[in-house]
């Protein structure tokens, strides 16, 4: 055993123990802070088939960084060359030690292998030495890219990089130094013993004339200290994401989700954020408004370090653009909402006694139609829906025609959880009592609420889905004209609920659909998302104008959208016609009655 000991390994050994100790302590404590629902999900699914895809996902995301590669090849290479490269260095190093050293040995031998093993007993070990050199070269290339990125981020396709706190920068530099120091130490040893691979030996040969034992020990000591510094700072810096992301992937696969209040799971999410800053570039707050320091990366950091966050949390459109970009797939909107949470006992605003008089309507065989508060401000949409229901002879109950109860989501977005819940319960009981089998809504905000925040026993459809089904089943006959129409993806319907194709299919069947510059996940918010609380009108219109510009890309004749909010926003921005899909469809209905009369 003493054969493989030198005092310089102590920092590394201690650092490793501290790292593991802190991580185990934190992970257990966070898990203990899961709420009842979250914990029951884990217990139920911990030994199920859901584990297998989680392993594959963890490999794809944590090692290969698939989503980062998708974003930008160079950025993907930078991340995975360091992460996956280092992982391989450790793995191959361990195998090398296992293969080349007989008998028992301490675990640090693999890390300081060249220092302890000076000869190449077999050809295999020569191969190992060269493989290790190649891996180190890959990691070094990643570090070089990271250094270049710091001054010229365009090389990895990023407009802006995260402004890190001092401690993160300290951790980052300690990480960067590990690999050049390893190269130097290994080369220096190779200079005397000739045990290096192609790179360390070549460099070592240059050192041969100046070799001195003390220098060798000093270099290895520095390497060991650097490792220790990084390990000890890791649990407190952004590099905690390295270990946390796999945990998060497993929990997510087990069905654990964020709740209204922060729990231990939120801690996992906060620590899984690598602060890569990918969320910054396309954030309308930054890109269109130049407001910095409020993006998800900063919010999560501030929450984690318990800095003042409410102001940052409010500076957001909740357009979910960052959620769709996040390589870790964090639930950024819910985390932000948790910070927005206000006191729940504001009675004046939570007085819903008026809803007591609103009663359900027996709707057996009918569709329940929920226009939504915003659709009441765009009556063109609700009128068009009435026309469509009539055209297909579908009886309906217009649930919120006269006495409106909000779906609750706007309150939820602002952090009024209790009030939102009251409204949800009222609507929910009315919907259940109506005995209908299908709920159709015209508002993506309500749609997201009904599908995600309610627990409804009946099917819920946005009207674009419903119309699409009517067209496919042949119930609704439409004429197609060659009007050039561009479709704007509303945040709540697209990024929020993943509905991208149905609206496009509907539009294709009535018009000539053209592309916008930024589409689907990349669509720009109309600027008037209900999630924004503190943005000024000027700011909102700036975002809106950027969205319109993107929509004008192919010079369309008409802007179609599927959200009353977006429609209202665009109506004031352009002389072009702005219509909801329901209106475009209603105008193109081939009336069966007319057909038979003509015949």
């Amino acid at each position, binding site marked *: 055993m003493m054969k493989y000991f030198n005092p310089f390994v102590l920092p590394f050994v201690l650092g490793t123990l501290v790292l593991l100790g802190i991580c185990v302590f934190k992970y257990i404590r966070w898990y203990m802070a899961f709420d009842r629902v979250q914990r029951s999900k884990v217990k139920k699914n911990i030994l199920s088939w859901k584990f297998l895809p989680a392993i594959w996902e963890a490999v794809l995301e944590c090692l290969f960084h698939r989503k980062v590669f998708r974003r930008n090849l160079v950025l993907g290479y930078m991340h995975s060359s360091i992460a996956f490269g280092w992982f391989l260095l450790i793995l191959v190093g361990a195998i090398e030690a296992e293969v080349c050293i007989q008998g028992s040995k301490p675990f640090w031998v693999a890390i300081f292998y060249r220092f302890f093993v000076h000869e190449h007993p077999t050809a295999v070990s020569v191969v190992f030495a060269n493989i290790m050199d190649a891996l180190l070269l890959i990691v070094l290339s990643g570090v070089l890219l990271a250094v270049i990125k710091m001054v010229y981020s365009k090389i990895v396709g990023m407009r802006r990089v995260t402004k890190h706190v001092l401690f993160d920068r300290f951790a980052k530099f300690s990480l960067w130094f590990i690999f050049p120091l390893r190269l130097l130490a290994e080369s220096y040893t190779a200079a005397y013993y000739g045990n290096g691979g192609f790179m360390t030996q070549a460099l070592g040969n240059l050192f041969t004339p100046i070799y001195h034992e003390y220098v060798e020990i000093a270099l290895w000591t520095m390497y060991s200290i650097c490792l220790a510094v990084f390990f000890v700072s890791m649990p407190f810096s952004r590099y905690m994401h390295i270990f946390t992301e796999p945990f998060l992937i497993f929990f997510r696969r087990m069905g654990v989700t964020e709740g209204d209040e922060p729990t231990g799971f939120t801690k996992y999410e906060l620590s899984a954020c690598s602060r890569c800053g990918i969320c910054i570039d396309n954030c309308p707050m930054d890109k269109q408004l130049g407001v910095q320091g409020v993006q998800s990366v900063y919010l999560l950091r501030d929450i984690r370090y318990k800095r003042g966050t409410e102001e940052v949390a409010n500076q957001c459109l909740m357009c979910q653009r960052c959620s769709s970009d996040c390589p870790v797939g964090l639930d950024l909107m819910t985390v932000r909402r948790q910070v927005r949470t206000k006191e729940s006992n504001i009675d004046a605003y939570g007085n819903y006694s008026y809803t007591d008089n609103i009663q359900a309507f027996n709707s057996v065989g009918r569709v329940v139609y929920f226009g939504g508060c915003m659709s*009441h*401000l*765009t*009556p*063109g949409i609700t*009128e068009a829906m009435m026309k469509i229901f009539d055209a297909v002879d579908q009886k309906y109950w217009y649930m919120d*025609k006269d006495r409106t109860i909000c779906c609750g989501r706007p309150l939820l977005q602002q952090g009024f959880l209790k009030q939102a819940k009251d409204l949800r319960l009222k609507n929910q009981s009315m919907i259940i009592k109506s005995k209908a089998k299908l709920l159709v809504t015209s508002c993506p905000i309500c749609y997201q609420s009904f599908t995600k925040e309610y627990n409804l026993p009946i099917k819920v459809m946005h009207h674009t889905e419903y119309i699409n089904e009517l067209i496919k089943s042949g119930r609704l006959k439409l004429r197609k004209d060659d009007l050039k129409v561009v479709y704007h993806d509303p945040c709540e319907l697209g990024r929020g609920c993943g509905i991208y194709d149905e609206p496009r299919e509907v539009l294709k069947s009535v018009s000539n659909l053209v592309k916008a510059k930024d589409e689907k996940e990349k669509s720009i918010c109309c600027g008037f998302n209900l999630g924004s609380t503190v943005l000024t*009108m000027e700011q909102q*219109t700036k975002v809106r104008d950027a969205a319109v510009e993107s929509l004008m890309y192919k010079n369309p004749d008409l802007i179609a959208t599927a959200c009353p909010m977006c*429609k*209202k926003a665009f*109506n*004031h921005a352009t002389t072009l016609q702005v219509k909801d899909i329901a209106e475009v469809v209603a105008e193109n209905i081939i009336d069966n009655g007319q057909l038979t009369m003509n015949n």
Partner: protein
Amino acid sequence: MKKIAIIGAGPAGIESASILAKDNEVLLFEKSTAVLSNIIDKAYLFPDFSSASEIADKLNSKLINDNITLMLNKEVVDIVKNDSEWKVVDKDGKNYFVSAVLITTGYQIFDARRKEELGYGIYKGVVTSIDMERMIRYNQVVNSINETPKRVVFLQCVGSRDEKSGNRYCSKLCCVTAVKQAIEVRKLLPEAEIYIFYMDLRMWGQHFEELYRESQEKYDIRFVRGRISEASSTFDRKIQIKAEDTLLGVPMKMTADLLVLMVGMEASCGTKDLGVKCGIGGEYGFVKTATPHLCDNETTEQGLFVAGSCKRPMTINDVINDARSAACVISDYLK
């Protein structure tokens, strides 16, 4: 004789043309096929209920002048400074060289369909103040099913003082117009209930305040301070409105036969377009004058003048006064 180009044959263009034509040759360009298109459909003008058509006729007769060349259906697409002269380019690409240019391209009304929550263009019972003027003129104040309305509701500030529609300014003349129209409706429909929903009533002109008082005392017009947030249709095709009475502090619902939207004034397309092309574009697309007090007809460009509601919302009397002052300033400039 010097040549002057005047762009826009509304009250401002015609009035200034008639004065300038005494000593100069005036080329009067008009985009549409008729002059005075903004007055033509009006019934009576506040504050004295004089007939709009009479005033239009009198203005029209001023065009009978050998020194005025009226060119209808001739849109001006560009105005370029050419040494001491100005080059005016029409839509057919023809150039006219003149010593001075007067822009009188005026306003257009706010498109009420942009405030979709008020239901204009969707429900027949929702009309604009312009539609109302026509209804009064031809004595056809009816609801969506051609019946005599029992309740008529006017809503002020549609597209004015409204941040969301992008117009923060006050259109200035809607307040008194609503009062005037309400009185006219009362004269036509003695039995009807008439309401005016307002934010503030700005009775700034001579006789306006008296008219407002009279409307309450003599004509039983009811005023409610508050905005209407949305309009919808009832089963019998009436208009249901949701509003807030901000003096009582209560939300309210009301069913009306006719909802009249007092639409504001915006810079016309021609005003916006020429303003930008000549480098005198100002706030909200209106043109900008050199200084607000002493040089309110001049622009930063020598020889380029402006008059009328292309500068800001104005009443007809203000427009005519402004046109006369522009004529005076231009005469001085050409001396």
